[in-house]
């Protein structure tokens, strides 16, 4: 630590940082634009001028840019110096010369860094009397709105989009006063992190387009700390709501996970919670139509169903721990299914045991950013865990940081470090069947089939640790490649192996784990990260249960009278024929879900649950981080959290069914009254998740003896917002599941526990830049500690199991008659819930599903893909370097139930096949009902019976 003197006051400052950071950490208000904690300093805006004195005798000093000046011990600074103030005021006056007079119609207004900084510098009178320069704006697609006139040329957008996130389609054009930040032509921003521009841009050039359509000022939005549910990474988000609709999702800084950036899926995928596909009332089939019925009626019906015989519960990897656990408590552990197919469950179980047994580190996303050699083994992380991909992209910069350290250039000196980095070799190796977005920054890419990738992995492990089994029949080129990769990994200080279950192959994960543990014998920093598919895949795996195949078997033998399915659309997991058989075998299907799915059409009873924006719940991310999300909206009856429905169901059967397992009083769900009771019961019942109760403070948390306010103090319209319904004032809704007050009344301070921060705002910092005041040190942990509790943070103390000799798969050989069908790495569309979000649907609709085929062989422009639900006529797309015998298609978008890998036959398009329904846009693929209360019969997902003698679909193997 160094000491700097700010206007005569000594302040502690971290050495190695710059003066701007030091001033901000000392609590001083020093305006800035171009500096960003994650992007470093470039000195472009000239806003953070301060006067620095060379010593106590120096009375004149000199003006320096704080962001470009390193902290030195004993530095003497003056922020309040008259000349420095005038300098800053003049700089902002220049910036405002061309700024349009449009704050009232700007989405940034009220949370605008430029507004804050203008007020901070004291510039309040416009002296410029000449004409303003204007720019045309561009249509940048469904996510981001562009209004170039507001630009102050701080360069943050391109530095984030191009330098940080690797986007190629946003750049700076023109020169001098005319610089323009945009695309070469109008068009959708391609990068998966484009939404962050809205938060990165200090003014309103880039704004959130879906939010603009349902706009509300920041001061009116109630916030809820939440966790993204669209992949297993577990990024922290803030859900903003007003008038019972979710308006937007913002990034919520978690120093160890998502930090400053959120992918577009997480930022714009929330739309399903406002969609007409939401279920708002209990439904049951009356004359072949799902018809709303009173809740009590539904419960009575369930009581009759439960009297029929055994009840089986199916949970879901997209539902919270509380939902899954309550269902398990209702039916008993022996009758609880995780709702995953056997193949999925094998993979997730494998991932869990590998992570538990890993002797090295299980890195957080932030740890991954500092890995200096990375091997991605058979996972397109940009599609399955985009934020992880972004972290890997940062890891490539490690060599340039080392070079900078050697050259004595501070790491935050962005331009210099990037110049040095241009010479530094990347240490990222990617082995995937299909090209990925990270290929461009990888040192080597390996394009081959998943089995061969696994073989390569085992070969690398054997090179590092000869105790690992050798791989037979390795070609020399591959062996040489394995040598090179192994050498780099061994030489690295912090190597990282990333794999996952995208290709449904446990062998890949085992190969990754054997490399990581081989490295860990020499280097305890060797990390292993395994990507899982859904937001609570990890939690559900720890909880455990039957597979869907087990349920099918039970159903076939008539052991199931009633099936209670919580938030799981089985049609995405089971082939149409299996699903039909299940429906025929089980007399009663009860579905608890928040969104209408194809499955809900056939359910005898549909109960309206809450999505993540309306209830409290706990999720476990793929890195084993237990995190809690809180509701932004208090749901109106009869919609309620899924576990409350389960509890009501329990009351129906507790009296009249003796076949149920003995009830443990500790987990008796009839005693649960609020979500904390469920979590507490879960913690007691499941030792592996004992920490779940501590993931965040519970609903009894009080700051200064008050609840936490979820709205800023200046939220408007309290006495009028519902006066068109009733002019009487009503108290804000009380929610027993949160410590939030649902109003502007309550406690709020930067010192709140980080898991409970509903919005970021401090006096005179109204934009998201106020985050610096909530951190212990800029870019470090939150003042209340980073949210979440890690499960595998420390390597397990138990002696590692003797390494089971992994099944090294045989090399892949292309077949003439059939292609190996693998999932295409596609971010927008395949994910179930976000596909219902209008903005994501618009984004993915522009990109119709295609069949990707190796570019080497000529294929006709359209071909027919024969799957178990019939032939699909698809456009083909040649992909360079795709190995022979492999075809790619986007998961769930061609055939709803789609498990990879599988083999499929291709045939040229015939007129007969051309009539089969092909792709339907996700927005239409699921039922869109005219009114949430009277859902029309659910439009079936196109299901054509497998016809023709050639329709052969063979799961390639049942188990690994």
């Amino acid at each position, binding site marked *: 630590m160094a000491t700097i003197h700010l206007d005569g006051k000594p302040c502690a400052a971290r050495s190695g940082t710059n003066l701007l950071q030091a001033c901000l950490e000392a609590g001083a208000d020093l305006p800035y634009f171009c500096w960003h904690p994650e992007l470093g300093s470039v000195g472009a805006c000239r806003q953070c001028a301060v006067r620095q004195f060379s010593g106590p005798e120096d009375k004149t000093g000199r003006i320096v840019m704080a962001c470009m000046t390193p902290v030195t011990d004993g530095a003497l600074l003056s922020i309040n110096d008259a000349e420095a103030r005038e300098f800053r005021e003049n700089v902002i006056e220049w910036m405002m010369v061309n700024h*349009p*007079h*449009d*704050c*009232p*119609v700007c989405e940034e*207004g*009220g949370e605008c860094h430029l507004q804050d900084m203008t007020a901070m510098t004291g510039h309040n009178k416009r002296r410029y*009397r*000449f*004409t*303003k*320069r*204007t*720019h*045309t*704006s561009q249509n940048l697609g469904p996510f981001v709105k562009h*209004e170039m*006139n507001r630009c102050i040329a701080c360069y943050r957008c391109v530095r984030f989009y191009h330098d940080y996130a690797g986007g190629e389609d946003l750049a700076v*054009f*023109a*020169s*001098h006063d*005319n610089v*323009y930040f945009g695309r070469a032509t109008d068009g959708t921003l391609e990068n998966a992190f484009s939404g962050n521009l809205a938060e990165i841009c200090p003014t309103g050039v880039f704004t959130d387009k879906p939010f*603009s*359509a349902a*706009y*509300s*000022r920041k*001061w*009116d939005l109630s916030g809820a700390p939440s966790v993204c549910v669209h992949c297993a990474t577990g990024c922290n988000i803030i859900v903003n709501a007003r*008038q019972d609709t979710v308006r937007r999702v913002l990034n919520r800084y978690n120093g160890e996970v998502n930090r400053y950036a959120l992918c577009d899926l997480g930022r714009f995928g929330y739309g399903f919670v406002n969609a007409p596909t939401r279920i708002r009332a209990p439904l049951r089939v009356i004359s072949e139509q799902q018809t709303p019925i009173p809740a009590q009626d539904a419960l009575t019906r369930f009581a009759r169903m439960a009297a029929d015989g055994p009840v089986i519960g199916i949970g879901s990897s997209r539902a919270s721990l509380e939902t899954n656990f309550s269902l398990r408590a209702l039916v008993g552990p022996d009758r609880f299914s995780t709702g995953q197919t056997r193949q999925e469950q094998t993979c997730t179980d494998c991932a869990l045991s590998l992570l538990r047994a890993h002797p090295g580190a299980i890195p957080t996303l932030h740890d991954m950013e500092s890995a200096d050699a990375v091997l991605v083994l058979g996972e397109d992380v940009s599609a399955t865990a985009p934020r992880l991909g972004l972290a890997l992209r940062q890891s490539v910069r490690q060599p340039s940081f080392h070079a900078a350290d050697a050259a004595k250039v501070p790491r935050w000196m962005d331009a210099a470090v990037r110049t040095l980095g241009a010479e530094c070799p990347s240490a990222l190796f990617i082995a995937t069947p299909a090209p990925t977005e990270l290929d461009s920054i990888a040192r080597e890419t390996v394009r081959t089939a998943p089995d061969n990738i696994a073989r390569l992995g085992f070969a690398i492990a054997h090179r590092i640790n000869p105790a690992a089994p050798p791989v037979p029949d390795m070609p020399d080129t591959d062996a040489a490649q394995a040598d090179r990769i192994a050498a780099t990994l061994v030489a690295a200080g912090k190597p990282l192996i990333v794999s996952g279950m995208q290709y449904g192959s446990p062998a890949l994960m085992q190969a990754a784990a054997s490399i990581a543990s081989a490295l860990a014998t020499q280097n305890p920093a060797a990390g292993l990260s395994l990507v899982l598919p859904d937001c609570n895949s990890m939690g559900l795996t720890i909880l455990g249960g039957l597979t869907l195949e087990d349920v099918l078997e039970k159903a076939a033998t008539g052991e199931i009278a009633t099936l209670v399915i919580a938030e799981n659309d089985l049609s995405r997991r089971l082939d149409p024929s299996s699903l039909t058989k299940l429906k025929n075998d089980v007399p009663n299907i009860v579905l608890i879900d928040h969104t209408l799915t194809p499955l809900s059409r056939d359910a005898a009873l549909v109960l309206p649950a809450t999505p993540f924006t309306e209830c409290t719940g706990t999720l476990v991310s793929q890195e084993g981080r237990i995190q809690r999300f809180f509701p932004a909206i208090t749901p109106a009856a009869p919609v309620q959290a899924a576990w409350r429905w389960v509890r009501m169901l329990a009351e129906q059967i507790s009296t009249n069914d003796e076949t149920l397992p003995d009830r443990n009083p500790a987990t008796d769900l009839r005693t649960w009254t609020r979500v904390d009771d469920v979590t507490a019961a879960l913690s007691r019942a499941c030792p592996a998740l004992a920490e779940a109760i501590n993931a965040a403070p519970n609903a009894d948390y009080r700051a200064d003896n008050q609840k936490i306010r979820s709205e800023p103090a*200046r*939220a*408007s*319209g*309290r*006495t*009028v*917002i519902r*006066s*068109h319904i*009733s*002019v009487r004032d009503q108290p804000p809704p009380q929610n027993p599941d949160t410590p939030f007050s649902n109003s502007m009344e309550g406690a709020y301070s930067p010192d709140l526990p980080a898991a409970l921060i509903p919005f970021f705002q401090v006096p005179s910092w109204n934009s998201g830049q106020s985050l610096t005041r909530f951190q212990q040190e800029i870019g470090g942990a939150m003042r209340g500690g980073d949210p979440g509790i890690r499960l595998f943070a420390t390597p397990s103390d138990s002696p590692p199991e003797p390494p089971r000799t992994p099944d090294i798969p045989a090399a892949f050989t292309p077949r003439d008659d059939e292609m190996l069908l693998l999932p295409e790495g596609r971010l927008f569309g395949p994910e179930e819930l976000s596909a219902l979000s209008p903005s994501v649907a618009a984004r993915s609709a522009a990109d119709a599903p295609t069949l990707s085929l190796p570019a080497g062989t000529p294929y006709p422009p359209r071909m027919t893909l024969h799957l178990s639900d019939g032939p699909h006529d698809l456009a083909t797309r040649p992909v360079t370097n795709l190995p022979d015998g492999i075809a790619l298609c986007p998961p769930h978008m061609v055939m709803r139930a789609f498990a990879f890998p599988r083999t499929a036959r291709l045939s040229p398009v015939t007129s007969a096949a051309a009539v089969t329904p092909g792709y339907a846009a996700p927005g239409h693929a699921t039922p869109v009902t005219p009114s949430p209360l009277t859902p029309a019969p659910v439009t079936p997902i196109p299901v054509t019976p497998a016809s023709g003698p050639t329709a052969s679909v063979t799961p390639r193997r049942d188990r690994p």
Partner: protein
Amino acid sequence: MSGTLRTLFLTFLHAFRRRETVQYPEEKPYLPPRYRGRIILSRDPDGEERCVSCNLCAVACPVDCISLQKAETEGRWYPEYFRINFSRCIFCGFCEEACPTYAIQLTPDFEMSEYSRPNLVYEKEDLLISGTGKYPDYNFYRVAGVPVPGKERGESEHERPPVDLHSLLP
């Protein structure tokens, strides 16, 4: 003592002064244009709604009796609904002061009593008048640098035409 007596005497003399009271329903007083009475939403000189739904009136309102929702057509912001609960309004005029477009104005009309409180909830159709109110000439969109129907980019007051990015001229 003498002061007290003097006060008594002076007060007594007021019996012979003219009364200040205006006999209101029969005799209407003159109210200046800036009197703070019933709130209206005005239109700009081109007959379009002036309100751009910036929410500043709502946030300025000390009793939180204004609520509105932004909507947009072709770049022009307008309120989808605009609601004032006059049973809460204290006629402080902060909303008018906060309004950047002169849309919300207080008028000299104060005769708005109702027997039932719900009738005091005014919606946009109750508030919107067809004139410009106190400010006949101001049109926000002529000044603001956003394009709206009828005014392309670079056509606002004090604006140059958009920059040609392909030009190499300095």
